[in-house]
């Protein structure tokens, strides 16, 4: 997740990483990891470094462009999946219409990744 400051907007953070900031901590599926009190800012946003440290997310800085990038979590299972609960995925189709994976709830889904390259 690209950041221009080391502060996370909970909605953007959830949309990009699947982690939701709740009262009990950072949660993905059934997994909730408590956050240190100082991670929560008065304006409802959260401290990116504190969240990164808690979830084992690398923070890579690009000083020349004034940006940071937050990598995916490593701290919970050490695997690509932290939970078997599928994260929400919202992407556009070829016409630019947004599609949400969760709209297929109640059906089996085969999600296939391909590429032109």
């Amino acid at each position, binding site marked *: *997740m*690209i950041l221009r400051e080391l502060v996370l907007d909970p909605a953007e953070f959830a949309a*990009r*990483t*699947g982690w939701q900031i709740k009262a009990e901590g950072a949660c993905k599926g059934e997994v909730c990891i408590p956050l240190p009190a100082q991670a929560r800012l008065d304006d409802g946003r959260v401290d990116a470094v504190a969240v990164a440290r808690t979830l*084992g*997310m*690398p*923070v*890579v800085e*690009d000083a*020349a*462009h004034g*940006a940071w*990038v*937050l*990598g*995916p*979590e*490593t701290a919970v*299972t*050490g*695997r*690509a*999946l*932290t*939970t*078997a*609960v*599928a*994260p929400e*995925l919202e*992407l*556009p*189709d*070829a016409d630019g219409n947004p*599609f949400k*994976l*969760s709209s*297929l*709830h*109640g*059906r*089996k*889904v*085969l*999600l*296939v*990744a*391909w*590429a*032109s*390259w």
Partner: protein
Amino acid sequence: MWQEQRTHWYPRGLEVVTVALDVDAEQARPFIEQAHAEHPSLIDSAHVTDELFGFVNVPNGVWIDEDGKIVRPAEQAHPGRNEFTESFRTIDLSTLPPDVADILREARKITSEPELYLEMVEDWIEHGAASRYAHTPDEVIRRSQPRPDAHARAAAEFELGQWLHRTGDHAAAIPHWREAHRLFPENWTYKRQAWNFEDPMRQGHTDAYDGSWYEDIKAIGAENYYADLIP
């Protein structure tokens, strides 16, 4: 080709969703238009899907049940064989430029398992959670890609490169994509996406990167290009 399978599967409760992992969405569009698919055909120009689900090559698939639970994590997912997919096996290599012939010779050694994959999907449609191919949450997590710190850093470097590329500074992206390749050499998605910008399709050796499709597949052995399907 997924559309053809989808016509049999959709009435029995399964939807196919395809996601094109293409930084340049325009490169995916002609394929999508040609497929005339009825299923959602999405474009992920930021490679968010690979990071969220653990895809490291294409085509790869995950199974998600009616409750939104993943029952098979990322693995090779081939929709079958037809004249088009098999044409590279029958073409006379002596008619091709030597470097293209070399590439096809390696491509012919790649082992993919479309028949087994389709059989597994059929079984899941038929038996649901009772299918021997649908796994418990713990097993799904265990079977998902390992993610040491180096792989998480590779994801970050790859994303940073994409961001720089999108801002119009392609040259600035290259060192970050090189670093992603170094940190996670088994990730073909990071490599093929990056190589393709320098040498489209052939993905040959250029000054930008240490490897190339041909050199890297020779190094690991074509039979290891896709991890075996483990039913």
